[in-house]
């Protein structure tokens, strides 16, 4: 009987294919792509049917074909029925059948993938996407680093992108009652400026529209690595490009062995669970084996390498969580001290404009604001309050002086310190001078920080008397420019110690700036990008926590254990070796042990597969990369990029990828997951979005997934990579893996494009973060940290530190790094190794440069590319025919150098020179200059004063020395420079002839 049913099912499949082709042109086109014979049969050969595809037509015949192109061989009849008779088979069983070889598919890889994708298309062919509008456009949805958008498309072209206003169909918003008033957020997804530049980026004239090869790169002859960044490109076909890349990958393995290829990505590509680097790219890399270029936590630095040693939370990279804090702050807090904290620029992270309204509520409630920052940053500009301009890199001295006042005048929570902390007596002795004979008075700090003693004393007293929130970094819970200097770890450590003295966790005493966390439902599961998407990577993503279980897929693994620390990449190539320290949030201890490149047994790197190209704008002392790129040991450089920018000009082969509007993806706004657990707590509403493929890829560009797939197909790995799925099929699998199906159907979700997760009832909101700790209760924050073994005594009681308490003197440093003079267990103030105390340098380079995370771009994303962001005067200013990066300086410093507003200036030190446009104002004090990091443009020009970059990559000027020896902590904000008016006549010639225009 079952055999009869199976026969009927196999017969019916023919009809289903024929009907789908008749009804759906896209299906018909896809079916027409291949002519072949596909056999489906039982393993014993007793039953089967084969399907002949010819010019978009299909017919079938019962029986066994002597030589099919593709054969799907199934173990037995029940299994065959389970998969073939059921349109939605259990994905767990499908993956199990594949992994245990119950179902085997034989044949040429690209035909296998085509057939499996064709079978999946039966299910997706009739689906409707987006909402047709009255004006003839179709309204799609997407989400970006800066928030979600509607995308209106007419005739295959994007007309506009707009914010999404929620409707009465969407879940209601939360309301917070505070001080006799009620606060409910806008029914709108507010977005960052860079989100609204997306259309201009899609249609940028800097788009790479076809594959290219450097003209003097001959894979079979002279490769001329010395000409990278100099010679131009020629257009080649996709087949040629992919053949070169696939052949080179094989050659590297054969000639040099595993590890010869490094795969190196930029951190924040675009958004989504499929096309993200932690998803599609990692799966690609794992199937090939690659030397990992391991990132340092460059936005967190001082917190991971410093603060974590006093309170733990390594799984948040040394940052606290923030559940319940928006409500607590509005109800209880009297003053917010912003310290290196500019949420109006960085939007927390990915938070659009969501926190802004809440900070304006705080202003309405009369909460006082203080801003400690070398720059009167946009947050200070909007909110007002006292600006305390501090000299960069001296923050820890001011923190010590504040704590001195507290200790001296008894303005701290003595009971809390006695019961919830350890080591305070030793710390107090240091503050009061018993340890080293130096009292850390406000007067003591004045010569370091430039902040008058009476200002520090006034702040300390007010802080000691009032219920205060300390806002460190954009999200308020850590990060911040002060953690990225030579004293970054000292500062971050100080912040934790200050909180400990003020009774961290008590009502109104906490960290934050109303960016985190709103009262949302964090129990609803939807994966964030760090959950690893389709990667199957269980070590370097958070996939194993939920995603790997929720979305059954075939795991992958990188068998190459060799790694290069990202900050040391140039040395690894040029010197052939380097040492680094690990970013691994699973313990406090992991960071102490060095790792070395090369690793015994693995090949040094001879091929670089570069995904994106942001190094010049984002890595310290980045002109090092030029020599690395031109090093003779680097035999091949591939760059997969959307735009011709940054490092793309140093590649041998350029593979043009498309933007997220030209491919399918699915994602939740601002949900990072992993080390940034429950980051959607920055938002007013949790929004999960279908990232529609709004238009076809421009030119010959392809999605990242498709490029990876087509390379892997040349190695027979396409079926394993894709599991027979298109990107849309993977979106469905992510959808199914989440809790969405219990709330909205796949069909409705595809059409509408988003779902708003309802806020919990007021009774079930999370209590404020650290309240459990202040009250010595069982932890009630819904975060999976510390790990069970990391509690000092009872599970759920206390912190990750050895004592379970906040430690004024760090036990983990004392145990594992006691002899490190740059990171003592007792957090002494040690002046920066590049700063005001380095007399030899400051005489030549008297200006301290702060390069902050940018406001209008997301790192390099949306900068350059002739995006409309280039027209924002606070981002770039056009002089002549070029948009220059903006350097802010005080009029006094400008006058001393005969610099006028919007003059071009040469910013330089021993490491290099960058041309910027001067912006004169009193928002920076004399002696400090402020600029963004992350220029996407790198446009080197040779002058009689050496090379200058016209693009604005100021990381050319920043030091690559780690903050503290024995760490990988970068310190770009300890950077001394000089500035002069730029005489353009000094320019001799461009080092680069490679322009898009030169390509036929």
């Amino acid at each position, binding site marked *: 009987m079952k055999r009869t049913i199976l026969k009927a099912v196999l017969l019916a499949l023919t009809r289903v294919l024929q009907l789908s082709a008749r009804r759906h042109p896209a299906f018909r086109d896809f079916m027409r792509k291949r002519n072949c014979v596909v056999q489906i049969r039982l393993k014993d050969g007793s039953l089967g049917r084969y399907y002949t595809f010819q010019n978009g037509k299909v017919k079938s015949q019962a029986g066994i074909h002597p030589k099919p192109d593709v054969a799907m061989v199934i173990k037995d009849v029940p299994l065959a029925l389970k998969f073939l008779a059921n349109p939605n088979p259990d994905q767990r069983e499908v993956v199990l059948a594949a992994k245990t070889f119950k179902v085997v598919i034989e044949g040429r890889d690209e035909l296998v993938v085509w057939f499996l994708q064709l079978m999946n298309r039966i299910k997706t062919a009739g689906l409707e996407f987006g909402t047709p509008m*009255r*004006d003839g456009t179709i309204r799609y949805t997407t989400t970006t680093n800066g928030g979600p958008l509607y995308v209106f498309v007419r005739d295959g072209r994007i*007309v*506009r*992108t*707009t*914010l999404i*206003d929620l409707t009465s169909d969407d879940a209601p918003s939360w309301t917070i009652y505070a001080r006799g008033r009620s606060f409910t957020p*806008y029914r*709108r997804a*507010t*977005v960052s*400026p860079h989100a*609204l*530049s997306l*259309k*201009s980026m899609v*249609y940028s004239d800097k788009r790479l529209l076809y594959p290219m090869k450097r003209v003097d790169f001959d894979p079979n002859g002279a490769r001329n690595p010395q000409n990278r960044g100099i010679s131009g490109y020629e257009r080649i076909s996709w087949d040629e490009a992919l053949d070169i890349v696939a052949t080179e990958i094989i050659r590297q393995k054969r000639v040099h062995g595993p590890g010869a290829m490094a795969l190196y990505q930029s951190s924040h590509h675009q958004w989504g669970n499929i096309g993200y680097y932690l998803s599609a790219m990692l799966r690609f890399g794992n199937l090939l084996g690659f030397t990992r270029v391991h990132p340092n936590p460059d936005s967190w630095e001082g917190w991971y390498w410093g603060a974590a040693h006093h309170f733990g939370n390594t799984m948040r990279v040394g940052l606290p969580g923030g559940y319940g804090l928006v409500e607590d702050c509005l109800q209880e807090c009297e003053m917010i001290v912003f310290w290196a904290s500019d949420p*109006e620029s960085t939007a927390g992270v990915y938070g*659009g*404009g969501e926190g*802004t*309204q809440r900070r*304006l509520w705080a202003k309405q409630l009369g909460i006082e604001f203080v801003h400690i920052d070398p720059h*009167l940053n*946009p947050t200070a*500009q*909007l909110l*007002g309050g*006292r*600006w*305390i*301009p501090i000299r960069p890199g001296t923050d820890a001295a001011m923190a010590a002086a504040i704590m001195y006042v507290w200790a001296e005048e008894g303005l701290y929570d003595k009971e809390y310190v006695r019961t919830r902390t350890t080591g305070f007596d030793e710390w107090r002795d240091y503050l009061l001078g018993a340890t080293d004979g130096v009292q850390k008075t406000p007067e003591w700090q004045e010569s370091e920080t430039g902040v*008058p*003693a*009476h*200002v520090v*004393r*006034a*702040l300390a*007293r*007010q802080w000691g008397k009032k219920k205060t929130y300390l806002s460190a970094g954009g999200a308020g819970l850590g990060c911040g420019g002060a953690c990225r200097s030579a004293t970054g770890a000292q500062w971050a450590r100080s912040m934790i110690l200050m909180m400990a003295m003020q009774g961290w966790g008590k009502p109104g005493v906490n960290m934050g700036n109303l960016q985190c966390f709103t009262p949302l439902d964090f129990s609803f599961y939807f994966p964030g990008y760090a959950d690893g998407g389709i990667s199957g990577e269980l070590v370097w993503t958070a996939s194993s926590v939920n995603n790997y279980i929720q979305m059954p897929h075939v795991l992958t693994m990188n068998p190459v254990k060799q790694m290069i620390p990202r900050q040391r990449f140039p040395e690894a190539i040029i010197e052939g070796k380097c040492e680094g320290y690990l970013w691994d949030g699973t313990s406090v201890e992991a960071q102490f042990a060095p790792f070395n490149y090369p690793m015994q047994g693995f090949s040094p790197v001879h091929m670089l597969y570069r995904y994106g190209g942001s190094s010049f704008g984002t890595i310290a002392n980045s002109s090092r990369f030029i020599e690395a790129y031109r090093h003779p040991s680097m035999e091949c450089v591939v760059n997969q990029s959307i735009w011709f920018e940054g490092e793309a000009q140093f590649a041998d082969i350029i593979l043009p990828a498309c933007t997220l509007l030209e491919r399918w993806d699915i994602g939740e706004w601002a949900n990072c997951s992993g080390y940034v657990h429950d980051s959607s707590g920055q938002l007013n509403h949790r929004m999960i979005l279908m990232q529609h493929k709004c238009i076809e890829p421009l030119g010959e560009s392809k999605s990242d997934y498709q490029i990876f797939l087509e390379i892997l197909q040349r190695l027979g790995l396409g079926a394993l990579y894709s599991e027979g799925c298109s990107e849309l099929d993977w979106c469905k699998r992510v959808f199914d893996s989440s809790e969405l199906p219990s709330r909205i159907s796949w069909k409705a979700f595809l059409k509408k494009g988003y779902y708003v997760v309802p806020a919990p009832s007021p009774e079930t909101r999370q209590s404020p973060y650290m309240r459990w700790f202040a009250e010595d209760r069982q932890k009630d924050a819904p975060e999976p940290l510390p790990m069970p073994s990391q509690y000092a005594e009872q599970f759920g009681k206390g912190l990750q530190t050895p004592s379970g308490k906040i430690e004024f003197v760090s036990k983990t440093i004392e145990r594992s790094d006691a002899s490190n003079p740059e990171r003592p267990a007792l957090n002494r103030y040690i002046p920066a190794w590049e700063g005001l105390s380095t007399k030899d340098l400051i005489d030549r380079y008297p200006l301290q440069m702060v390069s902050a995370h940018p406001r*209008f771009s997301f790192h390099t994303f949306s900068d350059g590319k*002739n995006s*409309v*962001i280039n*027209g*924002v*005067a*606070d981002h770039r200013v*056009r002089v002549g025919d070029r948009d220059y990066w903006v350097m802010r300086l*005080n009029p006094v410093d400008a006058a001393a150098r005969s610099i006028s507003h919007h003059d071009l200036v040469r910013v330089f030190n021993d490491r290099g020179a960058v041309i910027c446009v001067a912006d004169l*104002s*009193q*928002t*920076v*004090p*004399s002696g400090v200059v402020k600029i963004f990091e992350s220029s996407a443009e790198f446009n080197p020009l040779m002058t009689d004063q050496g090379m200058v970059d016209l693009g604005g990559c100021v990381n050319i000027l920043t030091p690559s020395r780690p903050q503290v020896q024995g760490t990988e902590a970068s310190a770009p904000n300890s950077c001394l420079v000089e500035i002069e008016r730029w005489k353009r006549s000094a320019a001799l010639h461009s080092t680069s002839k490679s322009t898009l225009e030169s390509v036929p």
Partner: protein
Amino acid sequence: MEAQRSLAQHKQVHARKRAITFIQGIAMKKWNMVIDVALCENFNNCALVTKDEHIGNDFPGYAAPQPSQGHDWIRIERRVRGRVPMVDTAYLPTMCNHCDAAPCIAAAKDGAIYQRTDGIVIIDPQKARGRKDLVDACPYGAIWWNEELQLPQKWIFDAQLLDKGWAMPRCVQACPTGAMRSFLIEDETMQEMVRRDELETLGPELKALPRVYYRNLYRYTKCFIGGSVIANRGGAVDCLEGARVRLLQGSKQIAETKTDFFGDFKFDRLETSSGTYSIEISHPEFSLARLDAVLGEQSNYLGEIRLDQPVSPKAP
């Protein structure tokens, strides 16, 4: 029968009257924009969505495509007041003011620029071709010249969207602080709001009668005098909280305030170039301090002002 007809006629007439009133009601309602300068943080979403809307898009009858470079139909001006550390900034979004007595309409003469009944001013993308002179006709500099199309262009209040039922122009929707609000209301209602919220327009002396209004415009147009008061208390110099500070011009008191916990005080909304003021600072524990402050083009932060111990302390 007659009565029935009469009733029917009556009903018809009544319905027509109601319709007319309704149409007039709509016709009476006009678009206005209100921008709160104190809430503008230079986020630029307003400028960016306008470019998103117009670059590469042609709206026949409304606007031809905006060039990708060189046009800022919404443009944000910056003013920085004071000096370190007492500094504040103000951002002023500027755009076509949709004036009721628009000089550009007068200059166009032939209807190349016209004001719709809902108050929105449109440059006809056909009729205005070649009229570079219209760029200079706007005293606010809000008209831009499209060299390629030989066309004057400017922000059109997103009329192309409002006519399709959109509730507000895109710049209003995109602003994260709510600094921009648009109102479709009768002029009388608008004028009530102008009085109530102390709204102003740019260049009122031009008598162009803009429909774009500003709140807290003083942040951009006026000046402040500020200072930080310190004093030696118990052997250490400290910020002096609670000192009484009076602002006088001649013998006339203009304003009075108290220093905050940083000892700071600030008198705002003072006219630029309004001359010499005197500041009088008093505190029960210290001698009175008096100093002059001159206001020129810029605000005046007086820096630290130190109060001394009285020469002969008063009896308690």
